């Protein structure tokens, strides 16, 4: 049980040590809040040892790119730099240096690090709907929707259940609105 630090989310009182792997429903002894606690074997394991940063090298051995006095343990999968254990950022499917890890997270060019996507299809759909409501702006807003939709057509779509079909349908409606809007304003201009 060493290292177990579960606490009540409500009053931050430490929960009893008698927790088992089986889920339990109980009340906090301090604040009486009803809790359901599911614990897993990782809770009862000892904390893993910290990475050593004191690895000495012998002559002729490969060294870390950033620390010349440390033995290289691996290389970055993105840039190939040799890394010691301290510089190695390990993810389940590879090893990266801190710079590549940060760049990958920022730019999203390494799928493992991708944090977010913008749903351009939803933006285009919203623009199409708004242009229906504010019909007098109709040639402008659909035009903006068409430009945005075409510019972002190859952007990665949502991961959960939305396909490019939605964007294509919205683009079709935007084109129709643009044609209709242009026709409306041309008719007004001609009649005036």
């Amino acid at each position, binding site marked *: 049980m060493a290292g177990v630090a579960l606490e009540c989310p409500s009053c931050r009182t430490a929960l009893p040590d008698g927790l088992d792997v089986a889920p339990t429903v109980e009340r906090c002894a301090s604040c009486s809040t009803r809790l359901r606690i599911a614990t897993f074997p990782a809770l009862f394991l000892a904390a893993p040892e910290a990475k050593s940063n004191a690895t000495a090298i012998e002559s002729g051995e490969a060294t870390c790119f950033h620390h010349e006095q440390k033995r290289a343990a691996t290389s970055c999968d993105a840039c190939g730099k040799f890394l010691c254990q301290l510089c190695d950022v390990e993810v389940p499917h590879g090893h990266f240096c801190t710079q590549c890890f940060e760049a990958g997270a920022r730019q999203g060019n390494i799928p493992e690090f991708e944090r977010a996507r913008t749903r351009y299809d939803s933006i285009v759909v919203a623009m199409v709907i708004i242009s229906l409501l504010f019909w007098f702006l109709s040639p402008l807003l659909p035009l903006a929707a068409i430009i945005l939709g075409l510019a972002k057509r190859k952007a*990665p779509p949502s991961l959960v259940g939305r396909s490019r079909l939605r964007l294509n349908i919205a683009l079709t409606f935007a084109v129709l609105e643009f044609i209709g809007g242009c026709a409306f304003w041309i008719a007004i201009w001609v009649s005036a």
Partner: protein
Amino acid sequence: MLSQDPQFRKIKIKARGVGGSATYWLGPDHLLIVTQDGYNERYRRIYYRDIQAVVIRRTSTWIWITVVLIGILIVMGLLPLTSGDVFGLWFGGINLGIWTTFLILHLVGGPSCSCRLVTAVQNRDLPHINHWKQASRLVDELQAEVNRVQRKPAAATTPSAPETAAPAATPATS
């Protein structure tokens, strides 16, 4: 798309809240949380081997919303009905129907809660898990996967990695 990826299975819970929603996916070695707020979609991956516990806490929000809905039901529905005139009957009847529906839907949703996932380095509240039933279902589904990974022999496991924010499925799968 994740729904077409055989490695991922969606946990069927309605995780919706003010300003967004979330979906939970069980991957081969991690839980993927996809939160949608406005026009953005954010991904958070938590590896099964790092999950130490899930704590669900009952909150009082459910009771307060019930009290408020009953209050509205009385003021907007029952009081106009007692006035006796035709307008009051119509107004009260329609409101009674609307607010009774809201109240029933709210009661069917069940007690409210917050759900916290505990790892060695952080406690993270799971987004938009607001009902005890949803949280319990999430725990039930998650438990099998986490136990499957954590009960493997120690030699088969790899060193613990920091929690990274990323979708497991590559864009090529969508």
